[in-house]
């Protein structure tokens, strides 16, 4: 046990993890996490521009997890409820990494959405955002599929993701978003 916890510590230290969490994603948790990250960035005297970008992208990433967990809990049982995220800073860039189980049936659809966003240029993303914003469709929670487009627009980077097959029902989905100060 001693070795295990040191192993975690060492890995997190080497990857400059500022904050990490594994478990249920609740609204109250997100409020606290956002407050902690905001004061951390204040203490680190980050440029207001970078601070705002990180905050915005963090909100979208964490709320994706929140809404996703809400949707999968019913069918997914325990697995549907658990998610992980880490926020790190390396060479001036912020890394926001999330991971959660996803039903195999939903993998193809999500993969297509991510690939579609990744195929677009900056200008095309702007048009696509406006199109989706104005299409009149609204998911139950109001997201309406804008989250990933917004993250790609604000970071100016491709969405790095991975799906790992777990069993006949589940895969594990991870998303790695970089927010760079030099945009």
């Amino acid at each position, binding site marked *: 046990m001693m070795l295990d916890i040191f192993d975690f510590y060492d890995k997190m230290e080497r990857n400059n993890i500022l904050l990490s969490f594994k478990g249920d994603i609740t609204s109250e948790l997100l409020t606290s996490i956002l407050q902690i990250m905001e004061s951390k960035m204040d203490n680190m005297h980050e440029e207001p521009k970078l601070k705002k970008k990180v905050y915005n992208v963090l909100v979208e990433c964490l709320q994706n997890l929140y809404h996703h967990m809400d949707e999968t809990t019913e069918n997914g049982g325990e697995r549907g409820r658990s998610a992980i995220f880490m926020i790190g800073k390396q060479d001036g860039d912020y890394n926001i990494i999330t991971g959660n189980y996803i039903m195999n049936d939903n993998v193809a659809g999500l993969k297509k959405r991510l690939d579609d966003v990744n195929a677009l240029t900056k200008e095309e993303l702007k048009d696509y955002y406006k199109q989706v*914003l104005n299409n009149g469709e609204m998911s139950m929670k109001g997201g309406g599929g804008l989250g990933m487009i917004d993250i790609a627009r604000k970071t100016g980077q491709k969405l790095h993701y991975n799906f790992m097959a777990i069993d006949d029902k589940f895969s594990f989905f991870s998303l790695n978003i970089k927010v760079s100060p030099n945009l």
Partner: protein
Amino acid sequence: MEKFSIEGTPKTPTINFDMGVGFLEIKGRSIPENSIEFYKPLVDNLEKYAGSPKPATNVNIQLEYFNTSSSKCILDVFKKLEAIHKGGSQVTINWHYEEDDEDMLEAGEDYQAIINVPFKMVQVEE
């Protein structure tokens, strides 16, 4: 005429809507998980106001952050304002952004491109 107000929280903005003078203000942060629920009372009040609006309606939007869940609701608010504008009240939307916040300026320009109401982009110092 009535006033409608909501006090801000860390995740939701302050809203002041003075229907007697035709002034609506939304300021602060709008990052709730469920934004439809939050914005519904404002949308309802705008519908009520649309029945007998003032000759001019001034709208100040001064958001520090908003999430994509809010962005569709803000569009709904603007669509109500567009209808009020068409109905004869001179609506102006003053979109505030901090001087280094290009994302917020761009967000305002996105709405400006969709909504047929005069927008004023107002730069504020931090």
